[in-house]
């Protein structure tokens, strides 16, 4: 049994990373070309890791299932990236970013990792600007910032509502440079099918060429998994259609512990569900909460009339609106953290104040009218018009909003056919991000030696709830500034190993395993499509392992998921052949893993008899509906060891969390 040694360096928190870097082993430049590293995934973490490792001189082989590394789902991140630059002179510091992240995560993340993240955050911005990432700037030519949920400073850097796109294209350009120089070999339209272990160490992967269907063997001295999160277990989420857990799950099955799977972020501001053929949900960036006010009607009859189309939101008078976040959380108002905002929306809708005319009436307003007026006045004033008329104010205000959020407003209009400049947006929470993931130590190494995990795929930095604009920060921190150092410490012992042969028996076995699992699925020839099962999985997860969980619901979910998994393996129908491009087979392989994961999520949620961050257990709340954390019994990371498809058999390991630099407290945003 592998023990959970988090390998946190000794010493004061602000010195840990520097000291650790000073003492880790290095690989000399002349030895690096003798060493191969595989990177799976080309989002912010994977692309930046590949670029950095390539630059250093290792032989890097990078894999993505998309047709180009530039399409990884980091590209869809909208609002921004945090960094403790304190350019706005509003009291920010590395410590404050560290503190906000720990508190935001509801005291369920590892102090040392989070401090390091805050520490390297400033380098990220320097690096990205040097690479030509066109961040938003002020008229003086310096970088602009905005504010995000759960903080009281402005530390978020952004590029309109397309920050993820610009950062990913920056990392992609660095990666492209290394591909051009021949230091990274890129395998696009390839999916990792399994990891290969030799003498207990990660030594390669089996990949499927998605164009030809061929299975390929690739060997390396270390394997980096940067394959993103598992939100698609809910079928409907803001994740891309191809986002999946498979790479992370395969290493879990081969010995990597999976940590805190029940920590899922449900994002408060997404476009509500429209119908049964819907394939995904679309996020409206948290940055909008800088300018938008969230409300529902104060009177149930108004909500009812709105749903029936008899009343327009703009016709509801100010005094009949309930700005429930401002009411409940005056200190943070509309900028409370995501889990808090989501639960508050659910509470209002459960009480019958929802405004959307869908099956569940689930929807609330995000209203820009106040901001349009106030910014319109400011702009007019700045232009020398100290007494502007209403029309001018509205016009200038709309222009201001368009410059800040234009692409989001356009996207909203495209999807809903409504104009958010004129009427409030309708929004509702949706699955967005997964804080849980593969357990890693301080060096980002999993419990499989030589197998490292970066970005959303690991569990390390966000505890039970991630703050907005921190996912981009973590992805790039891991890939550019953490992994290149820690992986060298491991690889220093590999300089004499020589090339890993792919004809070893371990590769034979792994390939045979993959082949047989594909053949098994292909030969079921049942009666339902993969999506049929995926949608069923999603419904169970959303209803019973979603925003609100209970012992009874979780137990039912575990049983239902077991049944569904059996039904899938005996009744799925996959058209076509395995040795050709076959999207249905790709989906089936991913859904098979999601089915197993879903059950572990429910199991993890059942074991955690407390409410914290995104994990809300109905049994553990106070009279105002706020979460009741139990630090005495649950201040640990739950790391699960795989023990067969049935999650009931998985074995729990606990990593106790020690808070030495921050006094653990109730999380209060009031």
């Amino acid at each position, binding site marked *: 049994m592998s023990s959970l040694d988090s390998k946190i360096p000794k010493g004061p928190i602000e010195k840990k990373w520097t000291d650790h870097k000073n003492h880790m082993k290095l690989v000399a430049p002349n030895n690096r070309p003798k060493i191969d590293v595989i990177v799976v995934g080309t989002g912010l973490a994977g692309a930046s890791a590949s670029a950095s490792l390539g*630059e250093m001189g290792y032989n890097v082989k990078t894999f993505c299932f*998309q*047709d*180009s590394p530039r*399409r990884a*789902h980091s*590209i*869809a991140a909208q609002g921004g990236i945090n960094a403790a*630059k304190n*350019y706005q002179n509003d009291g920010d510091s590395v410590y404050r970013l560290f503190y906000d992240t720990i508190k935001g995560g509801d005291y369920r993340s590892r102090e040392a990792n989070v401090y390091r993240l805050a520490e390297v955050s400033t*380098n*990220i911005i*320097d*690096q*990205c600007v*040097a*690479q*030509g990432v*066109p961040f*938003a*700037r002020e*008229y003086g*030519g*310096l*970088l602009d910032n905005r504010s995000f949920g759960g903080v009281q400073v402005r530390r978020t850097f952004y590029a*309109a509502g*397309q920050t*993820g*796109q*610009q950062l990913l*294209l920056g990392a992609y*350009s660095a990666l*492209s*440079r290394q591909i*051009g120089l021949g230091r990274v070999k*890129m395998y696009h339209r390839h999916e990792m099918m399994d990891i290969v272990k030799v003498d207990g160490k990660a030594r390669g992967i089996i990949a499927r060429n998605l164009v030809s269907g061929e299975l390929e063997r690739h060997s390396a001295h270390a394997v980096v998994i940067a394959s993103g999160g598992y939100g698609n277990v809910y079928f409907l989420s*803001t994740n*891309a*259609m191809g986002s999946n857990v498979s790479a992370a799950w395969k290493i879990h099955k081969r010995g990597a512990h999976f940590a805190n799977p029940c920590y899922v972020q449900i994002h408060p501001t997404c476009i509500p569900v*429209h*119908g049964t*053929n*819907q*394939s*995904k949900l679309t*996020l409206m960036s948290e940055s909008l909460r800088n300018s938008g006010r969230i409300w529902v009607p104060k009177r149930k009859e108004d909500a009812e009339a709105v749903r029936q189309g008899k009343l327009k939101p703009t016709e509801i008078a100010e005094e009949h609106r309930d700005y429930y976040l401002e009411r409940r959380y005056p200190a943070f108002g509309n900028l409370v953290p995501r889990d808090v905002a989501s639960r508050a929306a659910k509470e209002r809708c459960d009480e019958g104040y929802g405004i959307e*005319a869908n099956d569940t009436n689930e929807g609330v307003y995000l209203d820009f009218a106040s901001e349009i007026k106030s910014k319109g006045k400011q702009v007019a004033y700045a232009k020398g018009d100290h007494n502007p008329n209403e029309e001018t104010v509205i016009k200038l205000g709309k222009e201001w909003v368009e410059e800040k959020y234009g692409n989001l407003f*356009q*996207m909203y209009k*495209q999807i*809903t*056919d409504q104009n958010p400049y004129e009427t409030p947006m309708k929004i509702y929470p949706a699955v967005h991000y997964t804080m849980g993931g593969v357990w890693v130590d301080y060096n980002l190494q999993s419990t499989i030696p030589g197998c490292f995990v970066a970005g959303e795929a690991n569990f390390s930095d966000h505890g039970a709830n991630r703050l907005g604009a921190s996912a981009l920060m973590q992805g790039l921190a891991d890939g*550019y*500034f953490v992994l*290149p150092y820690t992986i060298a410490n491991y690889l220093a012992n590999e300089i004499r190993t020589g090339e890993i042969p792919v004809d070893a028996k371990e590769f034979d076995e792994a390939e045979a395993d993959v082949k047989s699992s594909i053949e098994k699925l292909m030969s079921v020839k049942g009666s339902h499509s993969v999506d049929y099962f995926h949608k069923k999985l999603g419904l169970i997860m959303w209803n019973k392992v979603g925003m609100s969980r209970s012992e009874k619901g979780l137990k039912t979910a575990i049983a239902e998921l077991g049944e569904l998994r059996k039904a899938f393996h005996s009744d799925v*129908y996959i*058209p076509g052949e395995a040795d*050709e*491009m076959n*999207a249905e087979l790709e989906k089936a392989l991913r859904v098979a893993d999601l089915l197993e994961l879903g059950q572990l999520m429910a199991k993890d949620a059942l074991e955690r008899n407390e409410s914290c961050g995104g994990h809300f257990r109905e049994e553990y709340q106070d009279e105002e509906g706020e979460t009741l954390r139990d630090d005495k019994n649950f201040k640990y990371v739950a790391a699960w060891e795989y023990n067969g498809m049935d999650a009931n058999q998985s074995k729990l390991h606990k990593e106790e969390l020690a808070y030495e630099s921050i006094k653990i407290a109730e999380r209060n945003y009031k």
Partner: protein
Amino acid sequence: MASKFINITLKVWRQKNAESKGVLETYALDNVSTDSSFLEMLDQLNEQLIQDKKSPVAFDHDCREGICGSCSLFINGRAHGPQTHNTTCQLHMRSLKDGDKIYIEPWRSKAFPIIKDLIVDRSAFDRIQQSGGFVSVNTSGNTMDANAIPVPKADADSAFEAAACIGCGACVASCKNSSAMLFVGAKVSQYSLLPQGKVEAKSRVQNMVRQMDEEGFGNCTNTGACEVECPKGISLENIARMNRDFLKANLNSDK
């Protein structure tokens, strides 16, 4: 939004692989919600084909929010369908009418060979990027403070507008010459507008244009179809800027 349901006829390009010959197949599809996106309509078609034990239509897609650039499709003769400044995934069925006949074809360009059905190989774009679409800076993270060089807001905004390109290839597919100059121009512009990119501006434009030519893309004859069909509204100015940079680089090249 009250959703309606419409019945449509689809004419879809089917091609087993790069070597085989393709053909337009006809499919009738009923009860399509007008709130569905175009790709959700294709999901519905595929579900129907799978139920009938037929081969589903292969098409590229991923984020379904108009930013990853995976989705493509020539819809009734236009890249990404009838609307401007839109990707196929953000096209909604309310833009189409009951009884419509919809032609769906892949991007057509020698430099984008067909892989299967509606999926083409756009890796030529990656190779162009690899030939020079970057700033040669190592990832040390401490080259200099991010605010050390102020960048005029107008330049930063123009660089951002160029960098907003999603690399979908609609420009190439819409161009009668299969030219990739809007794509390459956008990338060249992003860097040449920023101080960080100016150092390598000459070699960058030369290398990227050379690679673009080697990939078999055609030349620009200033028709402007690319700009009209670009889902992100990338401006033709970027082509002009690239041409200017290219001429300048060739006239006073160090080489």
